[in-house]
C-alpha cells in the first residue's frame, strides 16, 4: 500500500513541478468531464422545468390552433400567416361534444395600457368566461367576468399579477379605470401569479372578454386559439378525433390533408420536448466524448514523453530489482493520478457551469432548479479513471519493456 502512496506522491510532485504542462495535458479531460457534468445537470433541470410546466398546462387539455401544421412542429401562425377561419362559434360547437368540460377561446393583441400617469406597452388577451376552469387559473382579488358580461362585450378587465404590480403598485385596482389602446375598461379582478409556462405568460397580461377584444380593440371575428378541458386524460385522444371531424365538417373541408386548423394534446408536446432535450443531450455528449478521446490521446502523448525523460530511472529501478509489472503499474498509476486530477478539476468546472446556467436561466424568469446528481460525479470519476488506464497502457508497456542496460546508459 505504502509503495503506491509513494508513487502517487512522486506523481503529484511531478505534476506540481510542471504545472502548465500537466494542465495542458489534462485540458481535454477537464473539458470532457465538465461537459458531462453540465449536460446531466442542465438536462435534469430542463427536464423537470419542461415537464413541470407542461403538466401545469394540463395533461387533460387539448388545443386547437388555426392553420394546418405538422403534429409536433411549430404552428402556422409562427410563420406570420394569419388564418381567420377559426371562430368562437367553433368553440361553442366543440363544447357540445361528449367528455368536454369547458372550452375557452382566445385572441390577443398588444398596445398601450394606461392607468393615470402610468403606462405599459403590453399584451391584452380576450378570452371567454370559462378561462379560470380551463386553465386552472384563479382570481385572488375581485372576480372574473361572467358569461353575460362576455357576451355583451362589457368593458371589464382582469389583471395578471405582474400587470397589477406595474399599474397599481400601491393602490387597490378594483373599480379603477384603465385605458387599453385608448378604450376605457374597468378593473374587476386580479389573477394569481402563475409564472411563465413554455411560450405563454399570463402574469403580464390584461384579460378582457373575447367579444370586447374582437369588437372594441381588434375589429375582427376570428380567434387565435381554442383550449378544451376534458373530463379525464383517457378521453383526450378520442375527443381530439371528434374535434377534428367536427371542424372538418364545419369548415367544409373535403380532404383531411387540407385542414385549416390543427388539434394538439399536451402529451404530444411533452414527447416533442423530451425528444428535443434528448437530441441536445446527444449533441453535448458527442462533444464530451470527442474531448475525452482527445484528452486521452494527450495522456498517451505526455506519458510517452515522461517515459522517455525517465528512461534512466526505469533502467535503474530494473537494475535494483523492479519486475516489468512493477514498472507498468507505476506508469499506469501516474497516468491515473493525472486523469483523476483532471476529472476532479472537470467536475469543479462542470459544477461552475451548472451554477452559471442556474443564475442565467433564473434571471430569465424561469423557476430553474439547481441539480448536480451524485451519479454524474461518480460517472465522471469513473470515466477519468478509465481514460487513464486505457490511454496509459501503451506508454506503461513501453516502459516495462525497456532493457535495463540500454535504459541506464540512455542520455
Amino acid at each position, binding site marked *: 500500500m505504502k509503495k503506491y502512496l509513494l508513487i502517487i506522491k512522486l506523481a503529484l510532485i511531478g505534476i506540481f513541478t510542471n504545472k502548465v504542462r500537466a494542465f495542458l495535458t489534462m485540458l481535454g479531460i477537464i473539458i470532457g468531464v465538465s461537459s458531462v457534468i453540465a449536460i446531466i445537470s442542465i438536462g435534469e433541470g430542463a427536464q423537470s422545468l419542461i415537464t413541470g410546466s407542461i403538466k401545469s398546462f394540463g395533461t387533460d387539455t387539448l388545443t386547437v390552433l388555426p392553420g394546418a401544421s405538422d403534429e409536433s412542429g411549430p404552428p402556422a401562425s409562427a410563420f406570420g400567416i394569419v388564418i381567420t377561419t377559426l371562430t368562437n362559434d367553433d368553440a361553442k360547437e366543440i363544447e357540445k361534444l361528449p367528455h368536454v368540460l369547458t372550452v375557452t377561446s382566445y385572441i390577443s393583441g398588444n398596445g398601450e395600457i394606461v392607468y393615470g400617469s402610468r403606462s405599459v406597452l403590453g399584451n391584452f388577451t380576450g378570452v371567454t368566461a370559462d378561462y379560470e376552469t380551463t386553465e386552472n387559473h384563479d382570481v385572488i382579488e375581485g372576480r372574473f367576468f361572467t358569461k353575460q358580461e362576455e357576451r355583451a362585450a362589457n368593458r371589464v378587465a382582469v389583471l395578471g399579477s405582474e400587470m397589477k404590480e406595474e399599474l397599481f403598485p400601491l393602490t387597490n385596482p378594483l373599480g379603477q379605470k384603465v385605458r387599453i389602446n385608448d378604450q376605457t375598461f374597468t378593473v374587476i379582478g386580479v389573477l394569481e401569479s402563475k409564472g411563465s409556462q413554455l411560450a405563454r405568460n399570463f402574469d403580464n397580461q390584461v384579460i378582457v372578454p373575447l367579444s370586447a377584444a374582437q369588437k372594441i380593440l381588434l375589429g375582427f371575428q376570428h380567434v387565435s386559439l381554442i383550449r378544451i378541458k376534458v373530463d379525464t386524460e383517457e378521453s383526450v385522444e378520442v375527443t381530439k378525433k371528434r374535434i377534428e371531424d367536427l371542424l372538418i365538417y364545419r369548415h367544409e373541408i373535403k380532404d383531411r390533408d387540407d385542414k385549416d386548423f390543427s388539434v394538439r394534446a399536451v402529451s404530444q408536446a411533452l414527447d416533442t420536448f423530451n425528444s428535443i432535450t434528448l437530441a441536445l443531450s446527444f449533441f453535448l455528449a458527442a462533444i464530451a466524448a470527442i474531448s475525452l478521446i482527445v484528452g486521452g490521446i494527450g495522456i498517451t502523448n505526455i506519458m510517452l514523453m515522461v517515459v522517455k525523460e525517465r528512461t534512466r530511472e526505469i533502467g*535503474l529501478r530494473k537494475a535494483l530489482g523492479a519486475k516489468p509489472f512493477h514498472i507498468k503499474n507505476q506508469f499506469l498509476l501516474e497516468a491515473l493520478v493525472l486523469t483523476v486530477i483532471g476529472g476532479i478539476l472537470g467536475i469543479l468546472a462542470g459544477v461552475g457551469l451548472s451554477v452559471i446556467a442556474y443564475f442565467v436561466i433564473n434571471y430569465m424568469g424561469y423557476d430553474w432548479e439547481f441539480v448536480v446528481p451524485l451519479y454524474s460525479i461518480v460517472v465522471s470519476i469513473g470515466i477519468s479513471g478509465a481514460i487513464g488506464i486505457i490511454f496509459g497502457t501503451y506508454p506503461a508497456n513501453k516502459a516495462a519493456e525497456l532493457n535495463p542496460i540500454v535504459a541506464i546508459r540512455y542520455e
Partner: protein
Amino acid sequence: MALIELKNVCKSYYSGSLETKAVCSANLKIKSGEFIAIMGPSGSGKSTLMNIMGFLDVPTRGRYYFENKKVTSFDEDSLAEIRNKKVGFVFQFFYLLPRMTALDNVKIPMIYADVKDKEQDKRARKALKQVGLGHRMKNRPNELSGGEQQRVAIARALTNNPKIIFADEPTGNLDSVSAKEIMKIFEKLNKEGKTIILVTHDSKTASYAKRKIRLKDGLIQ
C-alpha cells in the same frame, strides 16, 4: 564451491554484418568473499563483463552459473528477483532519483522485495549510518556532495543484504579524498563477508582488491 562460474562466455554486438566482440571466451571462477578488481583500458569490455555477472545483460554465447544454477535459462522476472535479492549495484554516476530524499532512495530495492514499511525504515537508516550518513537522511541528492551521493548509493546496494556488490568505476567521478573514503567502505564490507567486484582502470583504486582480472579487447589476460 564457486559463487560465480563463467564458461566460455561471449558477448557480441552486431551492426549490420559487422561483429564487435565486447567480451570473448571468458572463463572465470569467483568464490564467496573475494574482493576482485576488473581492470583494463577503455572499451576492453569491463562493464560488459560486469553487467553479465550482475544479471543486467545476457551473454550471446557460453554459460553462466550462479550458486551452481544456470542463469542463462532464467526469464525476466527471475532475473529481476536475483538482482533484487542477491546483488547490489554501485555506478559511476550514482543514479539517485532526484525527487526523493536519501532515505527514500535507499528504500527502493526493498519496495520491490515487498519488505514491510517499518522494516524498510529500520534497514534504510541502519545502512545510511553504516556509510556514515546518519545525519543527511532527509536530504535530496542535489543537496549532497559527490562522495555523499555515492555513499547513499552504497547504502542502497546494501539494504536487501546481498551476497555480492558490483561497482562500476565507483570512484570515477570523485576527488581523491572522497574516493579513498568510498574504497574504505568497500574494504570494510569485504571484511564483513561481502563479495565485491569492482571495475576500475585506476591502479590506486584497484590496490584495495585482493585479486585483479585484466581485460584487453574483450579477452581475460
